């Protein structure tokens, strides 16, 4: 209870145990209860929304981390593979890459299913396997050249349709014409499944391969590297410039109309829609400076422009939070203004500045809109090796997969969202950890 002088005078006359006072007290408690109820229900609503969003993502996405494989006996026919020079590794690899693995697969399939002779049926049978199955066979040969000419069991990657069937995402009950997989194909899968040849395992390739048009082959590695390179550029540009401007504006700049104007503009920029920064990036970095389209360098510069206001504002707040007594003490001991700032104020505000910067970077990590304008929203398979090469970013990968017609991309989209969320949680967790570890309480 806050006591104003009026109340002090009144206290003398009030009988605290009177009915009137009791009912007043009651009504105050009731109001508090109502307030608490509303506060708690809004919190509950927020939590429910979060649970629904996360739940639906995890429900659809978790199966994206598994893949279906079918074990087949593959006869590595010498007449098809030709004479491979096993002693010259380089030449050997080159010849294996050029070998007609498709024919090996087809002839092995025909051995397993001798009743399949029609060309279209052979095609249908082959469609049970991913194009990545050929890579699996190649890997077997490369790992151990001595198997050439023999029949070996190989775990082949199944096609997305088979994968969806096994995971129950394609219903068997609907008419044949309405699904992507025919009755005959389902019968083959069941036959293989009953023989114990169909297995499900963890989808490592999701983490180590690049984008693909085939859902079962698509992965997030190149997008992750793209995001990393982009954020690196963003950090290297935005952090020094942002902190520098914050120090100047907070500690050195005179307070006049000009600095007021600058401050208003910075606050304004923080609220500008991110697509506008994309347009700016397109105009300046690509059309004027002629930097390459789709490069993480351009993406990083554009996102740096977007992150700058956030970093400046949070850094200024952190600098402001350092008590004046520290500054006064330093100046009192003869430190110059610059020494005061760099020896005392800046180190003490560093946890706050880093927290703000990391949150700004996390924002940049989740951004797609500005990247559309500068060409990073594109189908890019190869992993970028430098910040000048074409690349995409994680949220862009999510956006592109969400737009793909193939059913198999549904779970991949959610799986990629889960990975992106994991990165965001790590970054924000790092921000909290830094703050708690280094923050000084006054």
């Amino acid at each position: 209870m806050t006591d104003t002088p009026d109340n002090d005078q009144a206290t003398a006359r009030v009988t605290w145990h009177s009915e009137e006072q009791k009912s007043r007290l009651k009504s105050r408690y009731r109001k508090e209860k109502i307030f608490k109820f509303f506060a708690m229900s809004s919190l509950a609503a927020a939590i429910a929304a979060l649970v629904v969003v996360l739940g639906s993502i995890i429900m659809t996405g978790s199966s994206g981390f598994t893949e279906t494989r079918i074990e087949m006996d593959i006869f590595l026919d010498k007449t098809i593979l030709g004479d491979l020079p096993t002693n010259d590794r380089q030449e050997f690899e080159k010849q294996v890459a050029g070998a007609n693995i498709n024919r090996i697969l087809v002839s092995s399939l025909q051995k397993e299913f001798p009743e399949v002779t029609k060309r279209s049926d052979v095609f249908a049978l082959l469609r049970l396997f991913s194009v990545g199955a050929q890579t699996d066979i190649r890997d077997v040969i490369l790992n151990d050249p001595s198997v050439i000419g023999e029949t070996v069991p190989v775990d082949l990657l199944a096609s997305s349709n088979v994968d969806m069937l096994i995971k129950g995402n394609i219903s068997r009950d609907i008419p044949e014409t309405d699904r992507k997989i025919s009755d005959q194909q389902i019968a083959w899968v069941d036959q293989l499944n009953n023989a114990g040849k169909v297995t499900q395992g963890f989808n490592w390739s999701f983490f180590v391969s690049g984008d693909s048009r085939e859902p079962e082959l698509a992965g997030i590695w190149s997008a992750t590297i793209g995001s990393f390179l982009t954020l690196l550029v963003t950090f290297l540009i935005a952090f020094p410039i942002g902190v520098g401007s914050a120090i100047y504006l907070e500690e050195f700049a005179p307070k006049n109309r000009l600095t007021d104007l600058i401050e208003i503009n910075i606050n304004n920029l923080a609220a500008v829609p991110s697509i506008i920064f994309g347009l700016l990036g397109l105009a300046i970095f690509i059309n004027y400076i002629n930097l390459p389209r789709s490069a993480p360098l351009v993406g990083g510069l554009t996102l740096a422009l977007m992150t700058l206001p956030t970093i400046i504002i949070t850094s200024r707040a952190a600098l402001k939070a350092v008590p004046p007594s520290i500054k006064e003490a330093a100046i009192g001991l003869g430190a110059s203004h610059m020494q005061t700032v760099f020896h005392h104020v800046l180190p003490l505000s560093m946890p706050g500045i880093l927290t703000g910067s990391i949150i700004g970077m996390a924002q940049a990590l989740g951004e797609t809109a500005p990247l559309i304008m500068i060409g990073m929203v594109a189908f890019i398979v190869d992993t970028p090796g430098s910040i000048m090469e074409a690349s995409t970013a994680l949220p862009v990968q999510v956006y592109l997969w969400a737009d793909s017609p193939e059913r198999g991309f549904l779970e991949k989209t959610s799986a990629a969202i889960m990975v992106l969320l994991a990165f965001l949680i790590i970054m924000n967790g790092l921000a909290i950890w830094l703050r708690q570890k280094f923050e000084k309480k006054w």
Partner: protein
Amino acid sequence: MFKNLNKTLVGISLISVSLINAAEARDQIRIVGSSTVFPFSTAVAEEFGRSTSFKTPVVESTGSGGGFKLFCTGVGEATPDITNASRAIKSSEIDLCAKNGVKDIVEITIGYDGIVLANSKEAKQMNFKLQDIWLALAKDVVVDGKIVPNPYKTWNEINPDLPNRKIEVLGPPPTSGTRDAFAELALEGGCKTFPEIEAIKAQDENRYTALCHTIREDGAYIEAGENDNLIVGKLQANPNAVGVFGYSFLEENSDVIQGSIVEGSAPTFENIADKVYKVSRSLFFYVKKAHVGVIPGIKEYLSEFLSDKAMGDFGYLAEKGLIPLTSEELAKVRVTAENLTPLK
């Protein structure tokens, strides 16, 4: 701690400096353009990257119009080599190209795409005439010989054979090539059957186009963005709604949605290929001839795209929902690609 931090920062900047190679000549094909052609173009790009020693081309989905804009900015490494389009290049775009020095453009037709009207399997299959589509979606329509703002609220007001359900159509926004083609093929197709409209066409061509192509804005037509998966999801949730999108999305989702019959023919692979289904268009890509031989792999990309492995009856593009050219058409296109015959 902060001294170490400084060292780390210096370390990171050194690493990043080493990451910047000197800008080399581009050795990767760059493709832009239509989002409808994107799934096919990327499938070819991926296979091309896998089966040749060239780098996998970078494919951007910018929309047909956006693609031409980028394509026509000039000749040189900074500009794209190929642009995909779900409609033919306009003469204004050829002029823009010519103005910026892009003279020889090779047009490659790759196949057909049906634009389908579809609804949830839970509802009955719809059976439209082109006239019905225009009457349901146009801003102004012909009633009793007069042109009035669209008064229709339910389908059976237009055609008694259609169900008594609210007109609710989810379709692409104006920026989309699919919308352009839908307006041209379905709406104009229905619109021009009215003698009143024919009369206007003779007098005022612009008014005619506006009347036939303008879609109503009173909520019956809902722009659902470029994401066709979103439309499919909404159709599932709302059996009363009808969606407009490309054939490949119908093919991938035929277990939950069904294509409506238009002018007596259903949107099936065969009907679109045989051109019996009316609302279908050609898909193209355009190659900058000046870049062939400069950017490595363009010719090889063309032959991969037009190979039997991709375009044939069992090719992977047919699997993705592209309706292929007839064998005579394909033979002709192959000659064009071989000789790189430019547009006139």
